[in-house]
């Protein structure tokens, strides 16, 4: 299986290439991609230089154009696609149907990957995108079990890529307006989720309170580290109980399912984390590279090290295991 690695900066890009990525994905410095965070992403010049760096080492570059085109501002996305093609991107990762249509028509030779944000979760949906836009690969939403993926793979006429490590969306990607409900800013439209601009921490007696858009997302006692208030990983009050209503503050780790995913017919494993530093990216990539080459018996030792990178967080195999539902 190919290893697809994130890069939020040119430095992280080079680290990922050097550490053994098969492909690196990144985005332009604007709302055309779903990690539109301050200080992240690539200018046209930086992308061109990074693509060249990758090509010289036989590593591909995928450019994420995976937000939905804002009505009236479509040209921003079309131009980004034109630029990425011109700069030599090996694939464009796209969620918006009209942007897929534009790329299929204007750049028929360009390899098109369907973003997880498109939320194609079954064979009919995937084959619709393959037949209509010539999509070559689809990134699966994190709503399927390994068994579901194995059943799906033979029925679709394209490659499948799955998330393997890093941040975990609890909700079906591309279909979540929780962030914009609380803040006015959403993954689909602005390329952000639970944005830092709307985060506030305040002390309340012994407790630290984390807020998003004025809503309390969590309260931490003196003995607990205060986590970032990602909306779907907050603690809430339901009926007579308090707890993590949607998901604990965990990150995704499907290392125990590597062989099952390969057997299921998965082409590529994706690491989340374009917002992560270059040291993190390099470490994750090189460890995963070793794990993929190792025997199942050798793997636990390699992966124990990797788990420590999840910022002291617990990890989950999420929807890949049926019991998660």
């Amino acid at each position, binding site marked *: 299986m190919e290893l697809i690695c994130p890069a939020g900066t040119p430095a992280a890009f080079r680290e990922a290439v050097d550490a053994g990525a098969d492909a690196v994905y990144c985005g332009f410095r604007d709302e055309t991609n779903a990690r539109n965070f301050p200080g992240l992403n690539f200018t046209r010049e930086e992308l061109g230089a990074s693509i060249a760096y990758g090509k010289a080492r036989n590593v591909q570059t995928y450019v994420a154009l995976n937000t*939905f*085109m*804002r*009505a*009236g501002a*479509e040209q921003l996305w079309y131009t980004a696609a034109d630029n990425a093609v011109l700069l030599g991107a090996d694939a464009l990762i796209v*969620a*918006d*149907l009209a942007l897929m*249509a534009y790329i299929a028509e204007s750049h028929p030779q360009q390899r098109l990957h369907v973003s997880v944000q*498109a*939320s*194609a*979760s*079954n*064979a*009919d*949906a995937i*084959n*619709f*995108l393959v*037949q*209509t836009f010539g999509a070559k690969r689809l990134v699966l939403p994190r*709503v*399927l079990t390994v068994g*579901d993926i194995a059943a799906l793979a033979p029925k679709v006429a394209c490659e499948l890529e799955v998330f393997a490590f890093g941040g975990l969306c*609890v*909700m*079906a990607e*591309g*279909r*979540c*307006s*929780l962030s*914009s*409900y*609380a*803040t*006015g800013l959403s993954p*689909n439209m602005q390329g952000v989720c639970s944005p830092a601009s709307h985060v506030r921490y305040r002390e309340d007696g012994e407790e630290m*309170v984390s807020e998003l*858009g004025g*809503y*309390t*997302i*969590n*309260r931490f006692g003196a003995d607990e580290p205060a986590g970032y208030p990602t909306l779907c990983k*907050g603690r*809430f*009050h*339901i*009926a007579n*109980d*308090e707890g993590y*209503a*949607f*998901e604990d503050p965990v990150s995704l780790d499907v290392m125990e399912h590597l062989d099952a995913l390969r057997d299921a017919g998965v082409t590529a494993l994706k690491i989340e984390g374009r917002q992560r530093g270059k040291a993190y990216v390099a470490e994750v990539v090189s460890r995963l590279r070793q794990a993929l080459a190792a025997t199942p018996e050798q793997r636990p030792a390699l992966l124990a090290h990797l788990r420590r990178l999840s910022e002291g967080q617990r990890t989950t195999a999420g*929807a890949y295991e049926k019991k*998660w*539902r």
Partner: protein
Amino acid sequence: MAGRTLRITLGPVPYLWDGEAWRDFYFRIADCAWLDAVTLGEVVCSKRIHFTQPFIDAVANRLADAGKQVSLASMAMVTLEREAMLTRKLVEASPWPVEANDLSALGLLSGKPHLVGPFVNVYNGATARMLASRGATRICLGPELPLASVSEIIAASPGTDFEVFAFGRLPLAISARCAHARAKGNSKDNCQFVCQDDPDGLAVDTLDGQSFLTLNGVQTMSHTCQVLLAELPALQQAGVSHIRLSPQHCDMAQVAETFAHVRDLRIDASEGEARLRAIYPDVPLSNGFHYGTAGADWVPAAAEQVSA
């Protein structure tokens, strides 16, 4: 007023209601003169389908006999083979027009006249135009879109009807995991249909007691009820042809009447809002998405006129 009269539609019941209660709700809706079209069907969870399946033909026929345009909604998320089969069967055999709510239904409906529901991402005119060229006759836009986007989309796709979500708790997210079952100590696969205990959803409050969200099975909704009433003239100006009311556990016939009266200038929007607060009490209203702010916000009509 510009353009045609705004038509009022009723979206599918988002919650799990007892089958007979569901049927009786729609029989009353059939007698409500203010509704022009009704979309039926289970959108949220395939495990619920058997509750309403025995009644759906009778309900659809009763609504059609009463002069309503009837359509059947496909599910918002299709992952299991069983769900894929149900979607295929719906597209092949539905006696009523189908509303696509995921990309599989959208693909299968290609070339046939159909509707597009709010769970298909239509964020721009180019997407709307493409869907129209493939057979979409009416598109219900997702509630996240601000008026500026609604206007641009409609202007770019003439000849298509556009519907906007004007009343109801907002559908904000859907997951493979059932937070509703989890909140009651069950997993999705052994959920015991606990969502049926909450015919208007289960409240999610913050740890500081702020009302925030609502669980509805695998779907997460807003706690607030979106109401676009003072905004009707602006929506009509933008070319919106239909407004959608999403059933809540309240008197939806009265809700429809209130919208019709405001539309027809029989009462003003503030009187309409007061009536809605009485018909659906204890639930705060919101309209922030329309104005491009947080969806939970309530922007008073007067503030809108000042900023406009």
